[in-house]
C-alpha cells in the first residue's frame, strides 16, 4: 500500500491541473477529469486507488466517479504496468499488414505475452484496437509516440532505445515542444 502522504503532484503539474480546470465554466470542473487522469497516470505511472482518490479530491468529486471513468477508458491503467507500454494495433488494416507477426516478434524478443510486463519492469506489451494509423501499418504506440511501418529491425531499434531511456509513458512532462 502506498503512503497517502506521497500522493501529490509537483507544483508545475498542479498548475497544469488548475489551467485545465480553468478551461471550463465554474462548477464544471468534473469536465477536466479525463485530462487530469492522463496527467496523474503519466506522473505516477499508473492509477492506484490512492491516486484516483487524490484526483477526486483535486476535482471535488466522489471517488466512485473517478473509478467509473478510469475503468471505462482503455488508456488508463488501474494495475501497475511497465515504464514503457508497447501498444500494438491489431485491428483490420494493421492485421492485414502483419500486426500479428509484430506481436509474436515482440513476445519472443521480450519473453512476455500480451498483457504482461518484463521482469525488469521496463516493458509492458499490450494489443490494442485501431489507433488511426491504418495507412502506415503495422504500427505501435509507446507513450505518446506512434511508431509506424514497423519491421522487425525497427522493433529491435526502438526496444533498444527505450531500454536505455525508458521514459515513454511520461506524457506532458518530458515531451513538450
Amino acid at each position, binding site marked *: 500500500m502506498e503512503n497517502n502522504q506521497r500522493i501529490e503532484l509537483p507544483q508545475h503539474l498542479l498548475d497544469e491541473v488548475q489551467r485545465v480546470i480553468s*478551461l471550463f*465554466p465554474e462548477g*464544471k470542473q*468534473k*469536465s*477536466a*477529469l*479525463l*485530462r487530469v*487522469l*492522463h496527467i496523474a497516470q503519466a506522473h505516477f505511472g499508473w492509477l492506484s486507488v490512492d491516486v484516483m482518490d487524490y484526483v477526486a479530491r483535486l*476535482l471535488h*468529486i466522489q471517488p466512485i*466517479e473517478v473509478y*467509473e*471513468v478510469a475503468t*471505462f*477508458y*482503455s*488508456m*488508463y491503467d488501474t494495475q501497475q504496468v511497465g515504464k514503457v507500454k508497447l501498444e500494438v494495433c*491489431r*485491428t*483490420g*488494416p494493421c*492485421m*492485414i*499488414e502483419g500486426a500479428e507477426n509484430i506481436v509474436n516478434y515482440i513476445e519472443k524478443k521480450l519473453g512476455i505475452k500480451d498483457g504482461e510486463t518484463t521482469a525488469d519492469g521496463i516493458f509492458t506489451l499490450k494489443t*490494442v*484496437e*485501431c*489507433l*488511426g*494509423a*491504418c*495507412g*502506415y*501499418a503495422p504500427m505501435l*504506440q509507446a507513450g*505518446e*509516440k*506512434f511508431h509506424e511501418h514497423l519491421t522487425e529491425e525497427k522493433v529491435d531499434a526502438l526496444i533498444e532505445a527505450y531500454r536505455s531511456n525508458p521514459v515513454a509513458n511520461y*506524457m506532458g512532462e518530458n*515531451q*513538450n515542444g
Partner: protein
Amino acid sequence: MARKLLLNNVHIEGIHNYDVYRKNGGYAAVEKALKTMSPEDVVEEVKKSGLRGRGGAGFPTGMKWSFLAKPEGVPRHLLCNADESEPGTFKDRYLMEKIPHLLIEGMILSSFALGANQSYIYIRGEYMFVLRIVEKAIAEAYANGWLGKNILGTGYDLDLSIMPGAGAYICGEETALIESLEGKRGNPRMKPPFPAIQGLWQRPTVVNNVETITAVVPIVNEGGDEYAKIGIGRSTGTKLISASGNVNKPGVYEIELGLSVEEFIYSDQYLGGMKNGKRLKACVPGGSSVPILPHYLVCKTANGEDRLMSYESLADGGFQTGSMLGSGGFIVFDEDQCIVRNTWNFARFYHHESCGQCSPCREGTGWMEKVLHRLEEGHGTIADIDLLWDIQRKIEGNTICPLGDAAAWPVAAAIRHFREEFEWHVNQPKESQIRNYGLVADKSFQTENA
C-alpha cells in the same frame, strides 16, 4: 487537375506554424466573416455549399446548424469531434497534424455562425501528440488576437480549447462525446432530447467532425455556391479519404466527390493500384462499419454503372449491392485476405468498444465475436452462419446508439457476399487453417478464369 480545398497548402514547409499559415492566406476567412458577414450569412453560405457531415453520417451541416436552439441567456457550444476511431480512418489526424490552424480557423468561423463563445475540440486520447500540436496552434491564435475577447475589434469573443479522450471508440458518437467531455463514462444518451436542444451541460450544442469544420474555411473564402460547383449531385465539395490495405500508395487523399472508384484505386495520382500485382478481392469504402463490397461491386454498381466516390453512388443498390461513403476509411483487400478472419477481427473491435449500456449491443457483439472466432478456427457449423445472421439482425436498429448497427452491418455484408467462404471454413476446416479461400466465386469471374 483535381481541386484541393483543405490540403492545398499541406506541402508548404512549416505550414503548422502560425506565421507560415498566415502568410499563405490563413485566417482570411475569419477576417472576411467577422468584418463583413453576419452569423446568419455564414450559415447561409454553408447551406448553399451543400456541405454534409464528414464524420460518417453525411447529414447536411447547414441543416444541423439550423436546429440549434437559441434560448435567451443560455450559452451554447460548438464541439469538434476529433475522436477519429473508426478502423480505416486517419484523415482528421492528418489534417490536425499538418495544418492545425485550418481547424482553428474553421472553429472560429463555425462558432461565430452558431453564436458560441466557448468551444472545445475533443480528440481521442491516443492522439496526444496531435493534441500538443493543436494546443500550441491555439496558443498562437490567442497570441495573435484570433481567439479571446473582442476578436479583430468586432466584439465577438471566443475561447477555444482541446481536450483528450482516453481510449473509447464510442466517444465518436456525439452524445457519448458530450458525456465524456463532462468527465463521465462514454455512455451515449437517449435521444430525444438532441444535443441541439440539450447538449453539453444541458446547453444547446452542435457537434461536428474535424473535416466538416475545416471545410467551412474554403466555403467562407470562396462562397457556398462555388463550393457546391465541385462534386456531383448532392455530394458537393471535396472529401478526405484515408486509404489503407493492399494498395501501392496508402495514405490520406483529398478527392473531388464524384471521382470514379476505379480511378481512385488504380491511377498513379491516387492509390497506384494493387500491391504486388495481386487482384482486388473486396473493399470497405467508408470505415469498418460500412458493408464490405466484393470485387465485382467495387468499381461497378449492380447495374453496371461506374461506381463513384460519392454518398449516392457508393450507396447505390442499398445494402444488397451497395455500401456507404461513411467516414471515407477506404480499406482494400487483395486475393490473399480471408474475409472470415477480417469479419471476426472487426467483430472483436466492436465487442471491445461496446459501452455496455444496452443489452443487444453489450451481449450481442461478444456473441458474434465468439461465433466468428469459432468459424475462423475451423470449428464452426453451417448453423453458426445462420445464427450469426440472426444475431446481427436482432442487434441492428434495436440499440440506443449506432454502434449496434456498426457492429451488425459488417457481419451481415460479409455473409451476404461471401457466404461460400464461410461455408468453406465449415466444410474444409483443415484446409482453411492452411490457406485462404481466395477470390469470391463470382460467376463473371469464374467464367473468365475457367
